[in-house]
């Protein structure tokens, strides 16, 4: 798979932050609304993170009181939101350059950068502290690691420097089921590692599908996504490779005893469709199949974890 790219010129790494609309004497005339605070928590990303965290918590060995389980899920959600807020604070210069992100509260000037940073840091600290006090230190440590990894390793270090940004940085998105697992069991078992691996290998084809049809915007913003640096052909080849690797990885909870043959069969069928989608992307010269694969990848991850939950609970 692609080696780390050469570092991009330092001048490109950070740009001057966009001006704040209506700034008068250092104070924003526009007051950020409650909806703006909710938006910087990236609620759509948070929903998938929370769902995978719940499944990790449900399938782990051990028992957690329902109130403490709810607290653990809340901490995962708030921690993920906090990481998103700090990411939006740091990336406000890039967000202003891309159509998809230009309307976010910071580049649109509806919120001061310091507000977003303060909000994110307070929520991150609170989520880790409550997780440690109410649930256990392993889960709190993993939550802190996840937030730190997303902010420092992905956002500040990798995102602007290498096309492998979402491969390595994708680990941050893979931690939530492991946090859920640790919350219930107080430890990290092979099952937790399997759940981590599913999201880790799913992330590259998911994000590269998006990057394929947004390549122009990423190039304009100077973000070295794989389609920008290595081209569409190489990106499609790597998407297919990751989709193929994902097939046995997604089925791993079955031989590990975390789920039964129902899950095994369902995961293999879903993964076969995922590989088929990657093959269609390889053959398609337009970005139509990449758009379809991006949409399907979200459904794929949801269904994989949902099937795991159904099988583990014996609901089928």
């Amino acid at each position, binding site marked *: 798979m692609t080696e780390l790219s050469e570092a991009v010129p330092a001048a490109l790494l950070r740009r001057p932050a966009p001006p704040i609309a209506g700034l008068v004497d250092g104070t924003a*005339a*526009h*007051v*950020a*609304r*409650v909806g703006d*605070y909710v938006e910087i928590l990236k609620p759509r990303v948070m929903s998938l993170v929370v769902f995978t965290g719940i499944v990790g918590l449900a399938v782990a060995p051990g028992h*957690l*009181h329902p*109130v*403490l389980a709810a*607290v653990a899920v*809340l901490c995962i959600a708030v921690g993920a939101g906090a990481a998103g807020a700090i990411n939006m604070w740091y990336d406000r210069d890039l967000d202003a350059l891309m159509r998809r992100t230009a309307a976010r509260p910071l580049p649109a000037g509806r919120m001061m950068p310091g507000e977003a940073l303060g909000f994110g840091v307070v929520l991150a600290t609170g989520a880790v502290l*409550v997780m440690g*006090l*109410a649930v256990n230190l392993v889960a709190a440590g993993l939550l802190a690691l996840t937030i730190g990894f997303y902010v420092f390793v992905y956002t500040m270090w990798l995102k602007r420097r290498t096309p492998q940004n979402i491969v390595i940085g994708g680990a941050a998105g893979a931690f939530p089921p492991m946090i859920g697992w640790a919350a219930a069991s107080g430890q990290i078992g092979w099952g937790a590692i399997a759940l981590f691996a599913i999201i880790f290998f799913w992330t590259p084809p998911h994000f590269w599908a998006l990057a394929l049809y947004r390549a122009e915007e990423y190039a304009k913003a100077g973000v070295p996504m794989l389609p920008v640096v290595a081209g569409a052909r190489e990106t499609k080849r790597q998407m297919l490779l990751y989709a193929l690797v994902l097939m046995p990885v997604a089925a791993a909870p079955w031989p590990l005893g975390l789920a039964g043959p129902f899950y095994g069969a369902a995961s293999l069928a879903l993964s076969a469709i995922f590989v088929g989608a990657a093959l269609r992307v390889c053959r398609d010269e337009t970005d139509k199949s990449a758009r379809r694969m991006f949409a399907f990848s979200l459904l794929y991850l949801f269904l994989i974890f949902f099937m795991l939950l159904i099988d583990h609970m014996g609901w089928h």
Partner: protein
Amino acid sequence: MVRDPESERERTIRVRNRAVMAVLLALVALFYAIAIVRIGGWG
């Protein structure tokens, strides 16, 4: 209906204050529940 900027700003601040109050009350309830479960020996 067009609101003047100052009353819009005051309204936004009022809504934000209420949201902060709701979050604080939710935190009080959360810590109360955590304390009951932990001290009760269920957790």
